[in-house]
């Protein structure tokens, strides 16, 4: 089982959304990290077949997914960004509708939908109209619908948007239990979601795949770049202009800053262990206001 992208580029007139992306994915959970506009959604839409790349190929088990689109879509599960729904459908009806579109036998679909709704904690509201669901409930419904056909390739674009911490834990457990022998790719802004469950992290920046690897290995690339220092409050504004700050904690008239910098930011700064959040800021400093 192998999903491979070779030199995939997507451009809109003179804007390049994806630039020569090549990657090969074996079964496992992949976390796609990228700021807004980095090309995550474009990449997902290309893999799911709703957007055509300008150049390059996407193959699944060495077969072009566009030439074998029916076959590929039958093993695909997809949660698009800004997941939409039919407000007057109940949760169960929506699941059964998607199951029908995935060509699943009605009797099996009913069992499978009930099972998934239970897994995402929606079994007690399955007969309520979706318009009465909260944002988190709709998002969980979106996650459940993506898994109806027990897909070999599962693509989740921002699946944890709107989920509270408890729901996020439930989601992580669900993905972990589901991901055996499957390719799961998910994007999120909530770095900790990826850190806990992703076997590998893909860093996409301005349409370019900048780095990939296990989180520990990626974090290692910024080893020695993360510092903590304590400054007086009146110097805070100057420090915010000069340095990339990943955290600030106020303590009376002093502030403890966590700084990402290749050089020692202040004479008394101490090196600290980097985290994936630091890595995110390191790559996407523009979004962080730097």
């Amino acid at each position: 089982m192998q999903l491979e992208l070779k030199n995939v580029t997507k451009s809109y007139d003179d804007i390049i959304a994806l630039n020569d992306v090549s990657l090969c994915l074996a079964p496992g959970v992949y976390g796609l990290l990228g700021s807004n506009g980095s090309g995550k959604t474009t990449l997902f839409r290309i893999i799911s077949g709703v957007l055509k790349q300008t150049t390059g190929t996407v193959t699944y088990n060495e077969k072009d997914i566009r030439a074998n689109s029916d076959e590929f879509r039958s093993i695909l599960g997809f949660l698009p960004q800004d997941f939409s729904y039919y407000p007057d459908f109940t949760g169960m009806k929506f699941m059964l509708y998607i199951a029908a579109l995935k060509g699943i036998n009605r009797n099996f679909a009913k069992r499978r939908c009930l099972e998934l709704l239970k897994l995402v904690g929606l079994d007690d509201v399955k007969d309520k109209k979706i318009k009465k669901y909260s944002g988190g409930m709709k998002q969980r419904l979106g996650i459940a619908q993506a898994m109806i056909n027990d897909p070999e390739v599962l693509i989740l674009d921002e699946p944890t948007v709107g989920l509270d911490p408890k729901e996020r834990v439930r989601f992580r457990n669900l993905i972990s239990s589901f991901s055996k022998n499957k390719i799961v790719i998910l994007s999120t802004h909530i770095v900790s979601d990826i850190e806990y469950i992703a076997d590998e992290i893909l860093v996409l920046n301005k349409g370019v795949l900048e780095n990939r690897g296990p989180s520990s290995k990626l974090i290692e690339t910024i080893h020695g770049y993360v510092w903590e220092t304590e400054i007086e409050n009146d110097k805070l504004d100057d420090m915010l202009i000069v340095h990339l700050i990943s955290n600030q904690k106020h303590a009376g008239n002093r502030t403890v800053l966590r700084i990402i910098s290749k050089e020692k930011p202040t004479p008394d700064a101490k090196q600290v262990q980097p985290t994936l959040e630091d890595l995110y800021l390191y790559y996407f400093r523009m979004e962080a206001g730097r």
Partner: protein
Amino acid sequence: MKTIVKYEMEKIKQNKTFIGALFISLFVLAGILYVGFYHAQLYGIDREGVEKYHQIVEKSTGEFNDQRVKKVLTNYIESYQSNDANTKGFDLFSWEIANTFIAEGENVYDQINDAMKQGDKITIDQINLKSIEEIGFTEFQEPLTMGSFVTWKDLYNVTNQLFLLISILSILVCCLVFSSDTSRNMNSLLLSTRLGRKQLTIAKIIAATFISLFIFLFIHGLSLGAFTVYNDGFTGWDTSIQTNFSMELFRFPVELNQLQVFGLAIALQFLSLLAIVAITLYVSATTRSPFSSLLIGLGLFLLPKALTQLIKRGPIYHLLNLFPINNYSVKDFLTLMSAKTEFFLAHFVQNMILTMVVLVAIAIIFNFAVYQRMKQYQEV
């Protein structure tokens, strides 16, 4: 497939715009039927007009010849000059025949009124009547049949108005089918499923067509029900269309009775509806919002009518006359299709077949275009 069609129909039925439009349409339908049948001219002031009409029709029905015309007009003139309240009253059936056959036209009423003022009476022999041959009625091997026609003219009028109602309602249904999913950002999800590009598209086409046809049958069913009450059954079904004096189709070249004309009108409307549904579905598949889809759909439906106001001759005019908005009216399709100057071919039957074939072709081509578009749909 059946399951997907069911869901697609449910999506249409749950749409608030559709529900609202259906509700309004029921009022419009009630209005058309009320004005067309219950409030028709035939009822007269005392609401007994229909009953009197059928009594007169019963006496007048039969082979269409000069003797029968004279008999009808004799009764009409006598009744007009009578002082008996039971026989007096406006007789629309005979009045239409008198308008056709009395050579002096309206002047004859002045003569009769003058004679009545002087306590005298005018007889039919004092009135100059045209003959069937003089008027130029088309002749066939079998003689034409005379019978009830006023009620059938009302049925044709109602049928014309219902076509506009059904078409607008169907355009509204079909414009939602694809564009509402696009405007909701549902396409990413739907088109990435196994059956989302082929079977789903077919299911949407079937659902929209089925609902449109259901609307068509339901509305015409109600209309026919109302007509049978109004017309006391199907009296006059076998009356020749040439002897429908309200429609003045004396020279219509094909031997058809009123029921056959009604059948043709329904068949033409049915095929027109299939074409309208297919065109609107294509518009829906190519636009991003139901509102723009509705505007374009309605615009395309009405456009050929507007163009015929600008182009009144030649092949483009002939082409425009093939579109439903230009031939949905019963009198229009009967007159246009029997004239070489209005249509491509010389004979009514040929033009009717050509129109039907074109409508079916439009339906097939546009439905296929929708299928191809959604099969290859790419987001931007």
